[in-house]
């Protein structure tokens, strides 16, 4: 999730994908009511990612491309 401002169109698309049975007017009203909270949630997600210790990231992200690692089949 990105923390940028979500458009009504994107919001509607996501709400529909989530299966919410709401008409366009109700979706627009919901957007107005919770868009700020969705953005806040995005900020929280970014904070969590930034805070995670690099050492706990999957090892392959930090391995040089030419360095074979455990389980490497090349």
């Amino acid at each position: 999730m990105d923390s940028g401002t979500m458009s009504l169109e994107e919001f509607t698309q996501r709400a529909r994908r989530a299966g919410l049975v709401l008409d366009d007017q109700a979706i627009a009203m919901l957007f107005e009511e919770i868009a700020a909270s969705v953005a806040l949630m995005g900020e929280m997600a970014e904070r969590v990612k930034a805070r995670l210790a690099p050492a706990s990231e999957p090892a392959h992200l930090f391995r040089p491309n030419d360095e074979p690692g455990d389980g490497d089949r090349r």
Partner: protein
Amino acid sequence: MSEAELPTIAEAARLIANRQLSPVELTRSCLARIDALDGRINSFLLTRPEAALAEAAAAEAAILRGDYRGPLHGIPIAHKDIVETAGIRTTAHSKLLRDFVPQRDATIVRRLAAAGTILLGKTATHEFAMGGPSFDLPWPPARNPWNTDHFTGGSSSGTGAAVAAGLILGGSGSDTGGSIRLPAAYCGVTGLKPTYGRVSRYGVLPLAYSLDHLGPLAWTAEDCAILLQAMAGHDAADPASAAVAVPDYRAALRPDLRGVRIGVVRHFFASDYRIDAEAEAAIDAALATMRGLGAELSEIRLSPLQDYGACGWLILIGESWAVHEKVMRERFLDYGRMMRNRVVLGAFLGAGDYVQALRLRRELIEEMTAAMRDLDVLVTGITPGEAPRIDEKPGYESFQRPLMMPFNVTGQPSMAVRCGRSASGLPLSLQIAGRPFDEATVLRVGHAYEQATDWHRRRPPLAAA
């Protein structure tokens, strides 16, 4: 019954055991107080006066024939209305469950009944323990007995208000991000969120599987110890229930704090999120009292409060959406506005964000475990200050002020204890957290502090009416 005559559970138990207080008289008194006062604080969604009096009569008869079960025998209590009670309507304060009558008792209902408690009824909650205070539900929100224009805190709002007003001697609450401790703090009672897994959640409507806790709210720490004693213990019916021995909580209570090592997490409430000056001053005064009781104090530093908050809220949002997704898809507008607007955020949360929050949770638990290696408890802030007006509470306040969330993330026990009063006379409180499964030390610190101060000696003015 006058204000001075409102007994704690411990006091009433002593009188009942000595046959100086009749459970029937005590129950009748509580029911009369509900009739007289609850129209102003809306703490009950349902009362069962006839059944309660019958239970009280049975308790009294048992005690008179020498079959005394212990300190909860004949004690009037109530359960938060997300706790299933067989044959008794359980609504979650929601239109969706307006007529739901469960066929089973939750484990804590069964355990507290076996201990001899008298069930007076079911108490108000935020809708499904999440959305409130709301004015678009079938029942109004509970109001703070100290000033009915003010918020009780939630979501165990009815239990907190009813205990403060002396309508019950104790009751149950649930806590996913602070829902026992916040109403305890704002209503000026004592509320304990035990360790995750300490109290079975079987038969309780879930909000977030890995953050939900059940626990007691009562007038004192000693009363919480008595209630927890009956609530706690392994239950195979709850997959998260822990098979850990339950100690004698009351036996651990002492009037002093000699040898207790307290870590003060000041940055949570003094810089990460700055609470009101009067709330901070009340905590400082309480810390001085604790030092005077023999505790060793030191300040410690953890990750920023906002890290714990972000971690906990993302997990809560993801899991509450998982709980409500099916119904919310089909009956979105049957939820109250605040509930649906909070839970639906989960529809916009990515699986990756939820997983990263779980990974951070592991790191934060490790950090907390290391920080407590040489400490017995932590003390920190719990609310921004006094309870706000009920019509002024911002909808997403707790996103940005997650003072209680750290201990839901880590699962360690945490208790709200009153430690002062604001300029306008509303309660101020602090938070005591312990090591996992060491509720005994948390209760000990709360009890010793209460014994050394008199904040618990005064009831809300409404309770004396």
